[in-house]
């Protein structure tokens, strides 16, 4: 008799930007949706994000972006995941992006991009549908 496995999501911001409203609000709403959120906060580097993701055995890494740093940091996080053979964790990103950057981010290895103003509902649904038991 196993308990229902909880989905674990790591939420964080990469780089120097300190706008953490989005990351905090999404974290709280994911918690309300019954998920366990590991909140790493702001000013993180790719290495510490991936290490935390490994230690915590999370199902999802969620990166919050604001200032246009997504094209710089996304490849670094993806590369760090690859180096550590983290190939079974969903990588999602949320924030302010030009439409044309979304295919580029997906090409780099983001599984799903949520643009500013998306409803959290869509994030919750996506995670529930894509995290495998």
């Amino acid at each position, binding site marked *: 008799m*196993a*308990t229902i*496995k*909880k989905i674990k999501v790591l939420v964080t911001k990469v780089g120097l930007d300190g706008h953490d409203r989005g990351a905090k609000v999404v974290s709280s709403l994911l*918690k309300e949706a019954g998920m366990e959120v*590991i909140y*790493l906060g702001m000013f993180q580097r790719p290495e*510490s994000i991936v290490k*935390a993701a490994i230690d915590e*055995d999370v199902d999802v890494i969620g990166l919050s972006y604001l200032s246009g740093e997504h094209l710089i940091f996304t490849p670094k996080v993806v590369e760090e995941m690859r180096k550590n053979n983290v190939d079974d964790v969903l990588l999602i990103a949320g924030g302010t992006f030009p439409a044309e950057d979304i295919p580029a981010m997906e090409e780099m290895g983001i599984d799903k991009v949520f643009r500013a103003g998306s409803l959290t509902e869509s994030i919750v649904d996506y995670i529930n549908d894509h995290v495998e038991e």
Partner: protein
Amino acid sequence: MKKKLSTGEMVSRLLAGDRRAAARLITLVENEMDDHHEVMSLVYPYTGKAMILGITGAGGAGKSTLTDHLIGKFREQGKKVGVVVVDPSSPFSGGAFLGDRIRLQSHSQDDGVYIRSMASRGYLGGLSRATYDVIRIMEAMGNEVVIVETLGAGQDEVDVIHIAHTCLVVVTPGMGDDIQAMKAGIMEIADIIVLNKADLDGTDRSLRHLQGALTAGSFEEGAWMPRVVPTVSTANKPEDLQGIDELAATIAEHQTYLRKTRAIDRVRYDRVEQELGLIFKDELQKIIFKGLKGTGKKREYINSIIEQKNDPYSVVEEVLNTYLLPWE
């Protein structure tokens, strides 16, 4: 799909110190998956040597920043450190917001430190049992010190702290009245009382209160007398920190005491007894409910109690007689 390694293979990687194997095995025992027992049987021979340090106290007392500094001290001694941080789950959604890692950032790049956040979700076997298993896995991973941090709210969390060899209770000045109220509880579990934020007003008064409470307590001849250590764990400059070295020294002193007086044997005996009790309680319940499953009896018993045709004690006696005694 998470990669499937055999349980045995995962355990041998764990024993080699592999953090991904540790992470996976912890998830497995946390979720009480089917091979949970097998994992624990394989892991058990490699446990029992680590020093287990418990840290508890109210929210905002500074437990995580203290933990962060203590990790640093143990790392200076070349010891590998595992940390379990327990935080409450939402009783409504079952979700949790686990943010303590933010305060444990000094070691985010150190491979000798393994940190795991745990939500206090409704574990079938109880929070303490799940935590005990997580600690065992961290021991088997090769960590010489395992720190367990809990919010110290509720019996469940006090039980968790019971597994620790050395238990720190963190309080802050101005908690004067709370300290009065907590006195009995603190005396029971604290080996060391940390008076954190000792740069705030009211520090001296709190210090007197705590020391007064301790000297008023009665201790057996030669027994460990709980110490009070004032600290300042949050400072903008390292040189403004206070009491961290003293705290580390007091912890070491308590460890020496445990070994010298052979009190550690008693501690270990108590811990295993408690662990065993928990597992018994849990497994027996599982066996019984499994036995009742599909018979419609469970509902019948519950309804008979509600309708006051029966009482819980008589029901338990009857069930035990039916399902357990024949096996004797």
